[in-house]
């Protein structure tokens, strides 16, 4: 240590060896930076361990069924034969129902919040929609089971069944089933799609709108032809992010889907998703192939949400990077 630096050391509260530069800092600095690195590695390690452990524990099922796990519709604990197709189908179907309902509502809400609502209304309205995301899934499931399902059974499914000859609106109106699950999923993903779309629309520069108005366009034409195309990427990212949520959602879906393991075209029919199958059967599964199959389901769910989330994040990031570049 030079004399010059010792002078500086007179003022600090504790007489630590000090330096301006991390390059030659004291022990305490090394310890702290390594500590933060250590905990970062733990965080990353959790994700790695998750992949490793799920793959390892799914092995009994992977070994026994191979690829036929994806194509078989059988789920028979007595004969110890399992196939994931009905669960995969149910997951995709209920998520699609959720998206079909949630996307138009979220788009409309985002447009309203960004383009139409006066300042005093936009803030509180955003807040209310975001609060919807904070409600625990199990409470939405409780509400769905006791409030939504009876309504779905009586007016909605009866009415849809009478009015249309479509095959997916046929069958006895149970109430519990894909339609109820899809409706709950829609409620649960509206907040995230709305919030991300709203942020993407806010990133559109004002010149874009003003140019359109200057051409004599109406407000809707401006939104439709100048604003929405500009933030397409962000909107697609928002929808895919919502899809990722819907695919992995467990409690609410488990409570209203009926947990019946079969392939059926009817939206009124009880069904199962990957998450609901795990939630309802894992507790009673005996070790070996049964547990292995459920863990393989978890692995599939993890893989799918991983891919979906990576795509969504990349799209949303590209949109925000665009905004940053413009600034």
């Amino acid at each position: 240590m030079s004399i010059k630096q010792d002078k500086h050391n007179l003022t600090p509260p504790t007489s630590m060896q000090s330096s301006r530069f991390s390059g030659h800092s004291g022990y305490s600095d090394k310890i702290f930076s390594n500590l933060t690195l250590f905990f970062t590695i733990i965080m990353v390690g959790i994700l790695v361990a998750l992949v490793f452990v799920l793959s390892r524990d799914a092995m009994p099922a992977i070994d026994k069924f191979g690829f036929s796990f994806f194509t078989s519709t059988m789920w028979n604990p007595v004969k110890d034969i399992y196939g994931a197709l009905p669960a995969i189908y149910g997951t995709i179907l209920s998520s699609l129902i959720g998206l079909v309902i949630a996307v138009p509502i979220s788009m409309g809400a985002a447009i309203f919040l960004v383009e139409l609502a006066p300042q005093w209304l936009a803030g509180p309205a955003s807040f209310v929609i975001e609060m919807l995301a904070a409600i625990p899934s199990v409470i939405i499931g409780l509400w769905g089971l006791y409030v939504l399902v009876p309504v779905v059974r009586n007016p909605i499914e009866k009415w849809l069944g009478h009015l249309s000859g479509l095959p997916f609106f046929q069958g006895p109106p149970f109430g519990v089933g894909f339609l109820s699950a899809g409706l709950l999923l829609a409620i649960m993903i509206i907040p995230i799609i709305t919030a991300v779309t709203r942020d993407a629309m806010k990133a559109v520069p004002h010149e874009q709108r003003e140019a359109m108005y200057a051409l004599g366009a109406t407000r809707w034409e401006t939104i439709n032809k100048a604003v929405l195309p500009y933030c397409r990427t962000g909107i697609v990212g928002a929808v895919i992010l919502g899809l990722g949520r819907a695919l992995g959602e467990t409690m609410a879906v488990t409570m209203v889907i009926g947990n019946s393991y079969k392939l059926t075209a009817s939206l009124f029919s009880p069904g199962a998703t990957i998450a609901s199958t795990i939630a309802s059967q894992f507790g009673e599964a005996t070790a070996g192939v049964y547990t292995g199959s459920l863990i393989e389901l978890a692995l599939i769910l993890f893989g799918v949400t991983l891919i979906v989330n990576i795509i969504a994040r990349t799209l949303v990031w590209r949109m925000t990077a665009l905004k940053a570049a413009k600034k």
Partner: protein
Amino acid sequence: MADDSLEGGKEMNNLNERGHSRRKWLNRVMLVLCGTATAIAMLMLALILGYALIRGISYLNLTILTQAAKPVGETGGGMRNEIFGTLILVVLGSIIALPIGLLAGIYVAEYANPNVAAAIRFTADILAGVPSIVVGVFVYAVMVIPMHSYSAISAGVALAIIMVPIVARTAEESLRLVPSSMREAALALGITRWRAIVGVVIPGAMTGIITGIMLGVARIAGETAPLLFTALGSQFGVQGLLKPIGSLSLLIYHYALSPYPSQQRQAWAGAFLLIILVLGISIIVRWASNRKHI
């Protein structure tokens, strides 16, 4: 509203007029639809909250708050143990998650080079997107099976895994909002880098960090799926960290599917308590972070 078109010649006027009114009509319809969509989204919250709060409070009484659960058929009985269980699990999850999340956030904001930081941020986002039921299965495999028992501590770990990315991301974002002139000023005084971070940068980012922690707490307080195969639920109350434990969310799930009206009523009462807890935290967080901007 900018709904006037260019003026045309006399012969064009008629045509313009028709196109004009059609455009105006479409404009009005679409704008009304957007407003309706917003109203529907807001109505959903009102419906769910309304039912849970009104039904919940009508079934709520002192017995429910202060007594342990009783077997079906006996009168009385409450959810004291489950309320305690939720609090214990939230505290456990937070104790495990906070060091990991905060220090990882500090590493990314203060030490990592940009590429490494982007990669870790991405990892945190991916971890946050892992379905909570998958986290439950994972913790079952790494803790419940080796320990031969469902336990409160395994549930705490599962909740911590869900909380870590939330805390890490918000901590990192709020640390990066602290102007680098403050870091430089601190270092210029001759203190070490870690003391600059702990003494100057972190206090400057405190509001944001606490917001993130509270968001994480609100999130894990309502989680159910990761508890199914870790905490399991318990009829015997809180027996220590190595034994199964109940929680409000598990109680709501089990009682909602119960055939007994008395248990269904308790599910609604439990939902009331859980909503007050979760939304209470969320609203406080929102209020506090708004104040910061003013």
